[in-house]
């Protein structure tokens, strides 16, 4: 169970069971869809940016615990932060789950719960999907996002 507990940390299980900000955002001015068709993980992210701050963010979707918890924690991590900070988090998160060097602990905070994902190569794409979708939303990319 030890490896599994490292992947499925309590905070991940909790956010999977009761995802935060699981809703559309009224007056969202950025949105994007993410889809990993092979897995069946699907997500839509809505963001309202006010000035250069992520004023509100929400998501809806279906998927495994890793993707759902990743989306939920992502929304709590970036809400109220400058867009530049959200992008920095995206980069740090991506580096952590793909195992590119030591995780940037100071930046990542609670998101460190996903450090175990790098030991599960098949699941990296699940953790990444919400972040890539947010990234696309912030850049108003119209192409559908996938991490497969």
């Amino acid at each position, binding site marked *: *169970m030890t*490896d*599994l*507990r490292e*992947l*499925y940390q309590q905070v991940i*299980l909790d956010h*999977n*069971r009761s995802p935060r900000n699981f809703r559309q955002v009224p007056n969202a001015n950025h949105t994007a869809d993410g889809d990993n068709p*092979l*897995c*069946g*993980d*699907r997500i839509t992210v809505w963001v309202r940016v006010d000035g250069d701050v992520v004023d509100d963010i929400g998501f809806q979707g*279906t*998927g*495994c*615990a*890793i993707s*759902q918890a990743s989306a939920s924690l992502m929304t709590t991590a970036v809400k109220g932060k400058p867009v530049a900070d959200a992008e920095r988090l995206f980069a740090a998160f991506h580096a952590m789950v793909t195992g590119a060097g030591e995780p940037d602990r100071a930046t990542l905070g609670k998101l460190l719960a996903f450090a175990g994902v790098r030991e*599960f190569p*098949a*699941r990296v794409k*699940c953790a990444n999907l919400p972040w890539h979708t947010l990234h696309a939303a912030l850049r108003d990319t119209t192409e559908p996002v996938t991490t497969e």
Partner: protein
Amino acid sequence: MTTGVERVPTGAATAPAFDAERVRADFPLLGRSMRGKSLVYLDNAATSQKPRHVIDAIHRFYETLNANVHRGVYQLSEEATTAYEWGRAMVARYLNAPSPAEVVFVRGATEGINLVASAFGRSRLEAGDEVLVTAMEHHSNIVPWQLVCEERGAKLRVLPMDTRGALVLDHLPGLLTKRTKIVAVVHVSNSLGTINDVQTIITAAHERGIPVLVDGAQAAPHGPVDVQALDCDFYAVSGHKMFGPTGIGALYGKRALLEALPPYQGGGEMIASVTFEKTTYAPLPMKFEAGTPNIEGAVGLGAAVDYLRGLDWTAVATHERDLLAYAESRLREIPGVRLIGTAPTKASVVSFVLEGVHPHDIGTIADQDGVAIRTGHHCTQPVMDFFGVPATARASFTFYNTRDDVDRLAASVWKARELFGA
């Protein structure tokens, strides 16, 4: 009923027990460990493991027989050709095709279906015509037909299934219309395990003069097929799912149909003579085998069939039926488990979901226990949509699996439930 799974005699209790432990020894890979435990391989519907007989045959081919086929005048090429054609003859016997000339080597069931969709579709489908498939087709028996329907202005129609995952045959007569040009139906569903009554479908279609293609990718691994008894017009199989190598499969087609159809691909091997004005085609089956074929694959598939012919299929059927019943009952004991696919006739495939735990998470947890199962939509998205699930976990059993394997799977699912507090 023609697959091994279907041919359980009524006196099954007296049938000799199948010795799964003994056949396991024929499959080297089954001896390896996974994450510190013995491997439990329950993804046989995706691809099966290979017996040493097959591995050795491929090895021997390259060490002693390798040359191009149907080309050389020298002895080595003749020997390679003999080995290649031996593979074809073995497949013909396994499918009970009237002659090896009616067995075309392809890359797999996918290519077999594409061959028919393309050659048949381009020559026989016109605007307003219909192609009938079923609600439980693998994407490989949907998309090729969609492509050719789009090209020809024809329509794809779908025979529905019920909530158990059994086809609603009552709807068949209404769907076989004057415009129906071909029926394409899966013999055994890869995601539900349903064994379809293809016999009834074929008879009904033939009464109206409509040919039928059967996707046998998941049926052939469960026992010899009898295409003559079925009277199907085409039957497609994949070598890698029936204990042979990847990259090889076979398409059986009735001689008259294969002869009437235009070629699928052009190139070497498939011609009789070529000038810039006109090309005439080689006789069957070469007409459909453009280019240097997968020679080692044919030899390996022949060896797989050779191996399968040595099995007692009555005992295998009893064993697989026992595994299915045991797996379904062990999984049903787990609160929150819902089986997807509960048709009255099933092959040893169990798809399920667990409340509060996504199939991928079950898959990861099982993998930690050395248990390999498939999770996802299994290339049958319409089936997932029908059952209102994004994905399922699927355990697919074959003759080398045991009740212990089922116990290991059940333990992992219990663990998933516990971990998630579901």
